[in-house]
């Protein structure tokens, strides 16, 4: 799960403005921080999540939905995967983000319904659905991890820099 890009940029501006600049004594450093605030505000007007990042998530959701639909359709207590699964190859960031959220909502609702009613389903179906879901989780998590940067908890917890590699 991520915060929205707009909120992340707003949050960084607030952090600099409220927590950092008031506590900086050096005028040059304060000027630099004001410069970063300005640049973040510029980026906020222009930036969006990359379509590559969103497209990979949508692709994984489309694949698992296609796998689950024939297994889950018509099962008692399991809501249908109702989201529109077709997303144009030319879709932009806003359309991809909307499609990702819609398909995710729909497929998760179907999976939750399946787990609530799995006792009444044939064992082979239960096992097939769970295996498909686990394959999807692996793809989804690995896809998102490609876009992660390692976080130094010690630095943000203590305010003390640690040695930089290289």
């Amino acid at each position, binding site marked *: *799960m991520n*915060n929205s890009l707009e909120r992340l940029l707003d949050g960084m501006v607030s*952090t600099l403005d409220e927590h950092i600049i008031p506590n900086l004594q050096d005028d040059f450093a304060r000027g630099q921080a004001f410069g970063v605030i300005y640049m973040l505000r510029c980026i906020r007007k222009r930036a969006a999540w990359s379509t590559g990042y969103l497209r990979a998530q949508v692709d994984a959701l489309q694949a698992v939905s296609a796998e689950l639909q024939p297994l889950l359709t018509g099962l008692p207590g399991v809501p249908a995967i109702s989201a529109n699964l077709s997303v144009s190859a030319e879709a932009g960031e806003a359309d991809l983000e909307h499609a990702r959220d819609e398909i995710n909502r729909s497929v998760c609702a179907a999976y939750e319904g399946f787990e609530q009613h799995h006792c009444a389903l044939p064992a082979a179906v239960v096992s097939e659905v769970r295996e498909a*879901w686990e394959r999807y989780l692996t793809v989804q998590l690995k896809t998102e991890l490609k876009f992660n940067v390692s976080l130094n908890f010690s630095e943000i917890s203590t305010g003390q820099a640690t040695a930089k590699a290289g």
Partner: protein
Amino acid sequence: MTEQSLEARVSAYLSNRLGGDVRVDTLRRFPVGFSWATFGVDLVADPGVALPACSLILRMGADDGLYAPYSSKRQFQVLAALERSPMPTPRVYWHSDDRRLLGAPFFFCERSVGRAPLPSAGAPDDPVPEHRANLGSQFVAALAQLHQFDWRAAPELTDWEPGVTVDNTALHQVEVCVEDYRRWAMQPEPTVLWAANWLRRHAPKASRLCIVHGDYRIGNFLVQDGRITAMLDWESTHIGDPNEDLGWASLAQFNGGSGLVSRLLPEADFFRRYEERTGWQVDVDVVRYYGVMSMLKLALVNLAAAQRFQLSGTSDIRMAALATQSTSTLRQVQKLIEAVQ
């Protein structure tokens, strides 16, 4: 709220509470922790005012904190009860959830000496390398003391977890996770749904119930001259299976790359010494089960951070940074389940 206005409120509260003039000399926030804010408060009082100490700790659960909304009641209750235990805990003095007093739920407690070594290694004054064996023994001993505390006889804890039994405690904790998920997730999270169902299907029966610290690990105790002076951070404490704390303390997140439980001792030693201290046999399969649940709880903390940052308008950028860890934590949930299966 500025620290100046908090100082004035603390002075007014303590003067009223203690029936004499009490003034804050200095009030300083410590940079630790993502949830309850911690302040060191130095006080000056008129002669005759019964201050328990001139320097206290004030902990406050602000409305934009990670797990808000907060209550100070349970932390105060458990710490008050544990004053009768040999486990090292800070003595508690006063608490209230009335936001009109200090602006947020709070409690005052003893200022224990020492510093908290972190899960990550490498701090210049890290006490772990010099005192590792000794700290490991104390870490196990304190956990055994906590788990063997007779919580049923504690009047402070009479209303804790009514209805929880050895049969349903694991399922009860799964439902706590699911409630937190419903509260914090801004969109459905497929791995959480899957893990919660796995935990439901594999919930073990507990051998016994005890006070579970809920965040028992390095980073949550103070050390002075090689001695653990206080176990801290009791906000996740509940009645449950003692194996929960064993699973939590053993998470890789807290070993700083050392492969040791909380950077202190090998897992096999941790279990063996715990068995020796308690006389109870550790069921490693149950510990592994609670390891999965613990990792899921960590992932839920990441989701909480994302939600707090997105919706509460907090300018604490640590929340956004913590939120970015949800994917890697959920991936570890998946790997732990695969390893158990």
